[in-house]
């Protein structure tokens, strides 16, 4: 009920097409400054730039889409599933002239949005367990879900991810999962640069970049901001010695299983990201270029733009006089790097972000390759890129508002572009026909099954075995850990038991078959159908696939079933005539009315038609 009122309020606000952003306290006056943003005006500005470019190229503008096409498209792009037949009919029959705008706002403030955009960010941030013991990703996943629910500005989100530290399983501190994702610090840095600035500099880790300007020394200077940051799963040496060592030794020589439970349970309490950057780094032992020596001290420096403030406590000369394993005292230089990386003045951060979101919504790259941008690159339509960068800055990195601008544009609401291998002419004037993401296909099956496909998307933090045990362990002494290891649930059961207790704590989460894909994951079994459809295994950034393969097609042909009591089947049983049944199938599955030419199919059994529609390209492609 409450969330309904929220969107109504926003919707109303929207009718006058202004949105008030809660402004940050002005540094000069300390007063709150409200920023008025005109969504429609921004959308129109985009359309005008595109119209001008089309004119210049001598290309005709694309026609607008009807309500059926719009409804299907906005559900897919805003909340990651097709509309149910009820939602579709409700929208089409609505007479309100502002209904498109109202639907956009309703969806952007719905639970479906939280589910769909969690999937998106979780792929970019590669939410996944690491190693067999290094990191369990449940808390990280919950942090991202929380950030999407509260619509945390993206620059803040990125800053927190880059500079996170502290315990991995402390509820609310799941942001540390991003650093824990990599076991090697230099890999993590290369991935951070690719994630947030869309640039590929990993080559420079080991040698000067073959085709771009980055040298190995540039890479090490950037790495200097983060030096000494590391994931540690065991207690710090002083805690180990003082608290745990004695019992650990006894258990190790007495019972292997008890010793394992002792080690693993203590890790849940202590695993953490330590270190926050010293601002110094040393060149590698095999450094081979003439501009430096192996182990030479490097002072932190940025790749471009303004150097952020770093509060050094030691001089470079002093450090150089120390043995080569010294890197200087920790001074939170990592946070300085986060500030540089996410600043509106950074020429890559905002550009990479709008490039990414445009790609998610329109299917084309606004500027260039998501993970392979260059500093100079502005794309085929530089003034459009510039405008979108500006919109993002004015919106203070509120991605929901930014999406709202895109969705309100005529460009978005125009006929889809059929983009073949060699595009000719201007291609940024509309969304591209493309295969839907794996999670969207699977979640669209839900829209056929139930009136309420988003019902079981979480509205609050959910516990898993690790966060649950972390909380328990806060007051546990070494003696308690011994007791837990010796008399507790035992090696085979202890993780399972904590998971079970956590599940109980979460209350009723509904039946698995009615979950959105975003609810599956570490604590529950993986949603294997979405994996079959090409969901990213999150090994690398943007790892999802959209191609067919035989196991996927065999499943769609021979394995997928729509239950008898599914929404679409209930609707069918209420329909009087064959024609009515067919209309229901077309609306429910393809989101449109059948064409005249398709009436020849009407003579077939509804079950056969339903199978064919679900297996059709039109079902799994956005258009």
């Amino acid at each position, binding site marked *: 009920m409450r969330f309904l009122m929220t969107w109504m309020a926003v919707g109303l606000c929207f009718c006058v097409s202004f949105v008030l952003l809660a402004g940050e306290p002005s540094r000069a006056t300390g007063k709150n400054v409200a920023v008025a943003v005109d969504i429609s005006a921004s959308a129109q500005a985009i359309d005008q730039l595109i119209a001008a470019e089309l004119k210049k190229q001598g290309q005709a503008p694309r026609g607008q889409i009807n309500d059926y096409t719009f409804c299907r498209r906005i559900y897919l792009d805003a909340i990651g599933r097709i509309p149910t037949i009820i939602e579709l009919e409700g929208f089409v029959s609505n007479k309100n002239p502002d209904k498109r705008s109202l639907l956009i706002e309703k969806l952007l403030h719905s639970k479906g949005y939280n589910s769909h955009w969690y999937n998106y960010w979780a792929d970019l941030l590669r939410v996944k367990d690491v*190693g067999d013991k290094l990191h369990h990703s449940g808390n990280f996943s919950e942090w991202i879900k929380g950030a999407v629910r509260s619509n945390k500005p993206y620059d803040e989100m990125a800053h927190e991810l880059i500079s996170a530290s502290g315990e991995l399983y402390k509820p609310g501190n799941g942001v540390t999962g991003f650093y824990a994702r990599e076991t090697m610090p230099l890999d993590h840095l290369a991935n951070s640069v*690719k994630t947030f600035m869309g640039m590929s500099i990993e080559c420079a880790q080991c040698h000067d970049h073959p085709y771009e300007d980055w040298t190995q020394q540039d890479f090490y200077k950037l790495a200097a901001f983060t030096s000494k940051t590391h994931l540690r799963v065991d207690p710090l040496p002083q805690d180990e010695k003082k608290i745990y060592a004695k019992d650990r030794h006894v258990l190790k020589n007495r019972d292997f299983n008890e010793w394992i439970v002792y080690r693993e349970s203590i890790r849940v309490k202590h695993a953490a990201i330590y270190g926050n950057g010293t601002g110094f780094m040393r060149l590698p032992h095999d450094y081979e270029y003439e501009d430096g020596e192996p182990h030479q001290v490097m002072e932190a420096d940025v790749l471009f733009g303004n150097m952020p403030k770093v509060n050094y406590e030691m001089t470079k000369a002093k450090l150089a006089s120390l043995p080569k394993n010294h890197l200087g005292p920790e001074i939170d230089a990592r946070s300085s790097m986060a500030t540089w990386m996410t600043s509106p003045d950074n020429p890559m951060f905002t550009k990479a972000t709008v490039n990414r979101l445009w790609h998610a919504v329109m299917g084309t790259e606004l500027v260039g390759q998501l993970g392979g941008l260059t500093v100079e690159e502005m794309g085929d339509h530089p003034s459009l890129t510039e405008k979108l960068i500006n919109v993002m800055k004015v919106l203070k990195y509120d991605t929901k508002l930014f999406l709202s601008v895109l969705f309100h544009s005529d460009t978005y609401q125009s006929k889809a572009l059929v983009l073949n291998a060699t595009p000719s002419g201007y291609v940024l004037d509309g969304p591209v026909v493309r*295969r839907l993401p794996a999670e969207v296909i699977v979640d669209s099956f839900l829209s056929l099954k139930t009136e309420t496909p988003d019902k079981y998307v979480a509205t609050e933090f959910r516990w898993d075995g690790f966060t649950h045990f972390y909380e328990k362990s806060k007051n546990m002494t070494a003696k308690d850990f011994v007791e837990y290891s010796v008399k507790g649930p035992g090696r085979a059961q202890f993780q399972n038991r904590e998971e079970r207790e956590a599940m109980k704590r979460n209350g009723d989460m509904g039946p698995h078959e009615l979950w959105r894909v975003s609810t599956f994951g570490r604590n529950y079994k993986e949603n294997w159908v979405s994996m079959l459809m090409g969901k990213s295994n999150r090994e690398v950034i943007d790892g999802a696939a959209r191609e*067919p393969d035989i*196991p996927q*097609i065999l499943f769609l042909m021979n394995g997928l079933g729509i239950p008898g009591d599914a929404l679409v089947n209930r609707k069918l049983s209420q329909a009087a005539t064959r024609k009515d049944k067919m209309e229901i199938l077309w609306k429910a599955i393809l989101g449109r009315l059948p064409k005249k030419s398709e009436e020849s*199919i009407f003579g*077939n059994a509804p079950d056969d038609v339903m199978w064919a529609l679900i297996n059709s*390209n039109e079902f799994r492609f956005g258009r």
Partner: protein
Amino acid sequence: MERRDFIYRVGLAGASLPFLDATAASAQTARAKSVVYIFLSGGLSQYDSFNVEVDKPVLGKSNIIKSNADGVRVSNYYPKLAKQMDKILVLNSMKTDQGAHPAGIYKMLTNYNPRATVTHPELGAWVNKNLTSQQDSLPNFVNIGSGRAGTAGFFPGQWAALPVKDPDKGIDFVKRNKAVAEKAFRNRLDILSSLNADFQKNFGTKDTQSYVDTYAGSLRFMKSEDIDAFELQNENAAITNLYGKSKFSRSCLLAARLVERGVRFVKVNLGGWDYHDNIYGRMPANANALDSGLSSLLSHLGQKGLLDSTLVVVSTEFGRKPDVNPNAGRDHHPDGFTCLMAGAGVKAGQIYGTTTSDGKHADENVVDVTDFNASIAWRLGIDPNLEEKAASGRPFELANKGTVRKELFG
């Protein structure tokens, strides 16, 4: 499960498959046509299996038994293989630089250390990509059992392994849903064709075409006689009886059936070797599975005359320590472990390489895991220095600087 599965002869939409003469395979060195790659995840204890040539205390509770090959002895947990060691080359000097399971498995199967910025293809994917020709009707990389899925890494997903989780269940959903009659199924396909043809007119792209092609290919596959290879119940009794009933034995039978039909690379997984405690209580059952399955496979391939053209290898991510820990288990040991090779002209009935007699280090003729894999590729006629570029343009060589050890072959 990894994200991509397999594809062959279909869905390539314009991308053509090489004919064999155009591949990197060279007829001169191609002695093996197929590889059966048995992977023992967890870390096989070399001192309780095939390396007994060390000081007595290193062997723990294992006893030495003779084999049918002069100078080759094995532990008492492998009585069946002891009768077939004349077909096997034992490599006792294996070495890796990884001591944790995920990284060790990754290294053994891909030749590379795991990096967060790229994923590397498994050896099977290199083989699949380089030895698949238009004449082939079955995928050239099949992964049997649970374990690492057989990933294509930075290659297109079509080069990943076809997964077969349970050898007795075959390929998921390859049969028409029983509730749908043949006639109804054909009718459904007709409706689907008309819908897709219409969509193709207005919204057709190479991606939509690729789906149309892959449906066609999947249907061909469903009807293909070759999928009989996956139906173990169709094997004749004389052969089936060579094998035991365990899942691993049945997996080996499936591997042999695939090799018979020309599949290039079959990976068979047998996990569970990570015995940090009670190794002599827990290991014998697993050792028995390996002993039965592998000896049946060698007999079967031998009977069919396929052992000369099939390289059978057994590998593991690392070995186990020479000393038995206080929990009666053995911990991880990357420096001096044991792998096996058989068939395709390996120097069978011999031991290659040694560890120091205290079992602590690989000693003579050390074989890095990259050398091991380079030698397999070379035996298939693939140049181990073959280079492919990841999406970022970064080049990677198949064997990551591993060198071919020609002396393993006669």
